[in-house]
């Protein structure tokens, strides 16, 4: 396999997750969270995306280090 899709995809979710989480942190308790029923969904979901991105990147790195099967 040439390029492991998990690498760019993981990086993208790391960036998007970070953007959302930081934005959520900065706007905590803003009136706009009434829409999401009082949850700071940017913060929670951003962190989740960040973790998913990190898992993808780790998996891609592991696969590239493993000897070619």
């Amino acid at each position, binding site marked *: *396999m040439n390029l492991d899709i998990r690498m760019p995809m993981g990086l993208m979710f790391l960036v*998007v997750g970070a*953007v959302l989480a930081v934005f959520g942190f900065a706007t905590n308790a803003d009136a706009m969270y009434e*829409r999401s029923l009082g949850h700071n969904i940017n913060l929670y*979901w951003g962190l989740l995306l960040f973790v*998913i991105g990190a898992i993808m990147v780790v998996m891609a790195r592991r696969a590239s280090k493993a000897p070619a099967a």
Partner: protein
Amino acid sequence: MRIELHAVDYVILCVYFLFVIGIGWALKKYVKTGADFFLSGRAIPAWVCGLAFISANLGAQEVIGMAASGAKYGIMTSHFYWVGAIPAMAFVGIFMMPFYYGSKARSVPEYLKLRYDEKTRGFNAISFAVMTVFSSGISMYALAKLFGILLGWNFHFSIFISAVIVLVYIFMGGLTSAIYNEVLQFFLIVLGFLPLVLLGLKDIGGWDQLVAKLSEVAVGNGYAAGTWTESWAHTGSPAANPMGVEWFGVVMGLGFVLSFGYWCTDFLVVQRAMAANSMAAARRTPLIAAIPKMLFPALVILPGMIAIAMHVQSKGTFLPMEDGQPNYNMVIPVMLGHYFPQGMLGLGLTALMASFMSGMAGNVTAFNTVWTYDIYQSYIRPGQSDKHYLTMGHIATVGGILLSVACAYAATQFNNIMDFLQLVFAFVNAPLFATFMLGMFWRRATGHGAFFGLLTGTLAAALHHGLTLPKDCLVGIKGGWLGSMHTYPSEMAQNFWTAIFAWTACFVATILISMATRANKTDEELKGLVYSLTPKIKDPDTPWHKQPAMLGIIVMAAAVVLNILFW
């Protein structure tokens, strides 16, 4: 209906665009031969092919349309998944992939050439090529229209940006680019829509409350209380459900003819499996795809059900109205705007954008392959070098996108022509599965049989459409243009029955003509193309959870359980 986007939303959208282009750019150096460009060098792992396999089908029109159906018809919409997709996906993986992948055909039309003859391939290749360009254009048009209404984006700007981005990444990375972006889109849709469903369910008060609200919806529309939340219980008679269909039409028309015709023969999806890195991976592709596919109703149909429940609860103010009816196509945009703050809104719209673009990209990659191998190499310039065809593939990509753009603009002017074309494609597609089934499982089927069988099936579809009319419809594009012999309770019912007639006509005609004509291929030539002449694949070393038959049994069992749970 307007959604206000802020800086953070645009940042997320731009990050996505950057990665999409970046993936194309990173793949560029791996594209050296025609096989790399058109077939991803047959080097993609099964799980990637599997996710691309369902994403290629999950264009934005499907996301928006399924949510609209969820609101309009309730959980019966899931028949398009649990009946209309899973069995066909299991079938193509277990029984048909050995011939597609094993024959080394580079496209579905090419399989028809190997199995039958040149004219059958030509018929399929040309109709398919026209269809893909058309679908890609319609996808572009829908994107530009929706983003114009929602975000106030200029129509030309939306067309331009989506065309350029799709062009750049396919031009550089070929099929691999398209597949990778489909996988990306899969995760974006799941991660972008899941919070929407969770918030919606919480807002309405959980599943039980949703069921209670939807029974009000059902009773309000004059149906039994459970109609919106029970998928089979009200299919005894077409009058008992809002789809206007009965169980036989659902099972035969949708579950057998339309579903097998699409999932087992449409090169757009089959191409994803052909790119797999081994026969085993190719066979697993649709089976892996079936697992998320059967869970998608929770992501795409449930939002519609929640929206219509909210609409009733809010005394008809949740969804915008159009001609006295809720505008069902606005379900997804309304839900996004209602529940997502800035930030998440950017993610949701990016997911929608991604599904529009991969809807286009999937069509463009299928088009450039069929054009280059099945039309250009076969009829225009045969016998050239691989490099020559690779260049042609690049040119076809540009050409395919330009034609799509032209289609998108045509759609703004000539709505009737577009509807008419869509109808013609439906006629051509309806009988296809009979041709493939006989080709793969009956070695006596001949080239003349296949070709004239297909024509007969297409004609039967047109005749059936011309002689019947759905209830309360005007004669014309909806049918009845040859006189009205039968009135169907709904357009969907007419659709299902058109498919059943077309398939049956093609099946019978192919058999009769094959019997009357001489076999045009020897048994030796048909080896690897027909079931009875192909050695069975034995792989005792494969662990049970990777064996196609085992996976097939698991996904079928799961689909049965889902049908029973929501009976």
